[in-house]
């Protein structure tokens, strides 16, 4: 057994060796320029504003948390599967220990308990990636300077013109309320 792990270690060393040899060869052969323009992070030709290390949505954290719980469960289920498989197939070391049926029930209870966790997260909506489209409407920040009018402003402009034009502004307002 140790010998097989030694093989893995050798294999790992060979893999790392390949990677490093490539990196080192490339570091000798590639051109080196002292130009600073190319060193900006890519942002479609714009100058990047600020760091990229932003605070992201908490749902990624939720996903990672649920993953941890289930990874632990799976780690426990590997012995379960092996014992169950061996004892009912009649081969392997677990035969004759009389542990099979007991392990089956226990494993199922274990899965059900953790499935409750998944059900909780599910019911609470943490697994729904699109949280809600029916939240409060977007209010554009007022103080922002704009060169071009926003969609809202254009709409207001159009409505104002309608009002001036033929006096059908009431209907337009009603439509907007209905929407």
């Amino acid at each position, binding site marked *: *057994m140790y010998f097989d792990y030694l093989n893995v270690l050798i294999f790992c060393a060979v893999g790392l060796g390949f990677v490093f040899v490539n990196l080192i060869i490339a570091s000798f052969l590639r051109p080196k320029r002292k130009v600073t323009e190319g060193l900006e992070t890519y942002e479609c030709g714009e100058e990047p504003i600020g760091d990229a290390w932003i605070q992201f949505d908490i749902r990624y954290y939720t996903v990672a948390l649920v993953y941890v719980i289930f990874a632990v469960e*799976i780690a426990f289920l590997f*012995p379960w599967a*092996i*014992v169950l498989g061996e004892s009912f197939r009649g081969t392997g070391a*677990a035969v004759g220990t009389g542990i099979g049926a007991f392990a089956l029930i226990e494993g199922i*209870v274990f899965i059900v308990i953790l499935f409750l*966790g998944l059900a909780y997260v599910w019911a609470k909506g943490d697994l729904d990636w699109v949280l809600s*489209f029916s939240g409060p409407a977007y209010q554009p920040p007022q103080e922002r300077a704009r060169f071009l009018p926003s969609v809202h402003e254009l709409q207001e402009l159009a409505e104002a013109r309608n009002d001036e034009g033929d006096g059908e502004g009431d209907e337009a307002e009603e439509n907007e309320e209905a929407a």
Partner: protein
Amino acid sequence: MAQLLFYLLSAAAIAFGFGVVASKSPMKSVLSLLATFVALAMIYLLSGFQFLAAAQLLVYAGAILVLFLFVIMLLNMSDLETLAEHPTVSLGHTRVAIATVSAGVLGLIAILGAGAVQASESAAMPPDGYDKIEWIAALLFSRYMVPFQASAILLLATMIGVLVLAKRRRPVQTTELGRVDA
């Protein structure tokens, strides 16, 4: 050679463990922790506990550390860096001292533990007729049945608890599409 490997791996584990505490960048701490876990897994392997080693990698390195990474990325990095540069409480010397002392204690435990492991090597080995993972399973599903199920309930409670805490201060962001993800 096994002994040499053991001491090398222990030294690596302790060194990286020290790196976890001493490093200013939380990202480097997590990577050091990853190296510590890998070294620990290899020590398990060296002691003949294959399943423990794999579970260590699967659960700790593969899952829990990813959660740590997400937590670090969830926090605002620039805040963290300024905190590291100008700590509100001067932790510098205290931290190093604590890290050194704990590393020393850990090293002592490891050295003493190595002797203990050697002494009780035959006792620690599973009885004949059991492959390693079946041995663990046999104990897990018979003698340690209650702790096993208790761990399931503990995991469930942890998950629900953390979610309740995490969601308490969820910022509601609204944009042109309603609420959007990050």
